[in-house]
């Protein structure tokens, strides 16, 4: 990286007198580069290097039982071919993760938006309730997973409530049947992250200038029209930011599922991350796992870039 090379010369900006500094103005870049250098180095060493290794590895048949990675046979696109054409477990995990993303995001968005709109009203205890409603997103994912694992036990409180409402016959074995296990994962995820949508959307709603809605009201818009014709379009970039950030997180979903179901029963709740984890750390198919990871990366990049174009504009604007 050029930054690293250039900033090696001792620029000594701190000790220069003002006049001297002015005369050598281009040097101003020096301090900026020195300041960003540690961050760049960390990123390069701890992210770029491993990713490059993984990328190389994904074209080999390497496994830790077979000696050094350098000696591993180069197999070209074989891993990728295998994944895309023959590995139904991988393809199912992809589809399952995408479906999970769509369902979770829709629910979280709808609930979060509904709550945020309610918070535009006046009522007592609003700031306290706001804090309390944010609590779930502050709980660590492993604990969330563990807590819901307890709640969904066959003799747990959720089944107790179901038995009370619909009779003892109606209580499911949450982790033994695929649709119920999936429901448990979705409920957990929605509980955990709806607050983030609520938070982001509420701050977005509060940022909509009052005068826009007042102008719409005076021009004759009913509350519903004010919301859909004025507030919602203004809110769109914020919505996009929330959707992109959350969809990236759901695609990576691991901790909660690991604690709740381990992907079970069978592979019924296995997400991509969980599958890759099992490939690499249970089956030691590291090269194959790396190939799967890169496929996921490309797919995610593609999906997110669809949503991202308007967002990056927003990100840049807010940085000015």
């Amino acid at each position, binding site marked *: 990286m050029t930054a690293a090379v250039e900033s090696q010369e001792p620029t000594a900006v701190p000790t220069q007198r003002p006049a001297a500094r002015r005369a050598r103005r281009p040097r101003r870049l020096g301090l900026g580069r020195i300041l960003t250098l540690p961050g760049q180095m960390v990123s390069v060493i701890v992210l770029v290097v491993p990713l490059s290794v993984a990328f190389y590895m994904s074209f080999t048949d390497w496994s830790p039982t077979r000696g050094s990675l350098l000696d591993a046979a180069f197999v070209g696109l074989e891993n990728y071919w295998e994944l895309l054409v023959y590995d139904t477990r991988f393809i199912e995990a992809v589809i399952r993760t995408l479906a999970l993303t769509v369902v979770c995001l829709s629910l979280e968005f709808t609930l979060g938006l509904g709550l945020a709109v309610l918070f535009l009203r006046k009522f007592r205890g609003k700031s306290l309730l706001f804090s309390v409603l944010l609590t779930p997103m502050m709980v660590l994912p492993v604990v969330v997973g563990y807590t819901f694992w307890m709640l969904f036990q066959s003799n747990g409180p959720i089944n107790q409530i179901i038995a009370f409402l619909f009779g003892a016959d109606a209580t499911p074995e949450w982790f033994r049947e695929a649709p119920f296990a999936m429901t448990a994962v979705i409920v957990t995820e929605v509980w955990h992250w709806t607050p983030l949508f609520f938070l982001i959307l509420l701050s977005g709603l509060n940022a909509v*200038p009052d*005068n826009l809605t*007042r*102008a719409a*009201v005076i021009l004759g818009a009913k509350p519903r029209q004010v919301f859909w*014709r004025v507030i919602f379009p203004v809110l769109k970039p914020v919505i996009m930011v929330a959707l992109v950030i959350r969809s990236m997180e759901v695609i990576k979903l691991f901790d909660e599922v690991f604690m709740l179901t381990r992907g079970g029963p069978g592979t019924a709740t296995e997400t991509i991350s969980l599958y890759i984890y099992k490939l690499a750390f249970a089956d030691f198919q590291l090269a194959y796992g790396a190939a799967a990871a890169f496929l996921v990366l490309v797919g995610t990049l593609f999906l997110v870039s669809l949503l991202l174009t308007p967002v990056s504009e927003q990100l840049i604007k807010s940085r000015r």
Partner: protein
Amino acid sequence: MTAAPKLELRGLRKDFGGFTAVDSIDLEIEAGDTVALLGPSGCGKSTTLNMIVGLEEPTSGDILVDGRSVVGVPPQDRNIGLVFQDYAVFTHMSVRKNLSFGLEIRRRPRAEIGRAVDEVAELVGLSEVLDESPRVLSSSQLQRVGIGRTLIMKPSLLLLDEPLSNLETELRTAMRQQLRQLQLEYGQTLIYVTHDQIEAISLANKIAVMSMGAIRQFDSADRTYGQPAHTFVASFLGSPPMNLMEGELRREGRALCFANGSAAIALPQEVLPHGVEEGRDLVLGIRPESLQVAAGEAAMLEARVTLVEPMGPEKIATLRIGNWELKGLFAAGTRLVEGEFLSLTAQATQICLFDGASGVRLNPLRPEEPAWA
């Protein structure tokens, strides 16, 4: 076009908790008038505007448009237009969509909307940019979107909140002329809300000066300037504002004198209104430009010149008489020397007397005449 209305505020009051933002004001605005609601920020003018438009409900009092009360009527049914200070243009819609917003909400026929948009765009000079996004428009164009969007609804009364304050200085003059022009063509009752006296004077026929939730004077620009009805009006209008001096009346023989300690001004008899007795606390007001250099008998007061600031065609002198500090505005050729004493006079008609406690004017208002010429 609907008949031009008369807006009437009767004992209009608004409390926020324990704070009275608007304190029982009365105001009558004749049909076709252009009126400026002028006052510093926090004087209650925005609250008044919000109540007229319907964004706030009054605590008590009534608002009548054409003699009919609109209190309790939702904003969209009052037929009153408001142009916001920040224009509140919908940036996610094209100019055309902004203009047609009100009519589309009301589900008017497409053809009618199209015609109305073209007409209004022509009127406010936006025909060229109808399909642009507001993001690329200048601030004066944005303002015209705000105005056009409101005019298309054919409001019977149009309110503009600080219409010039967000414009660059060069644009202000142009916009002022355009607003004037628009008013001539449109011929409707307009109310400007502003904190800028220049804006008020240049845009409106009549000015309602507000402070602390009350209307201090509602009159022509000339009279509010020349014959302020309240010390607040005197101190708010003009730059530099009217000199206000606290003191009391003394009678020395036949001569009348306004004094505070050692400082004194000899007053002509006709300044004194009926029923004002000696010893009462008063405030005397003289505009800086009303002070004239005089000699001998004609002199009303003697002041020491403490500072002279040349301002091109004029000079501003800071003058001291006892505890009073006055400003005087003189022609550039006037001989003024810092540290020297100066004999000054002013015409009786240009001297104002206010009650010391309430700030209300004591000498009666004269009929319309240019107070400074």
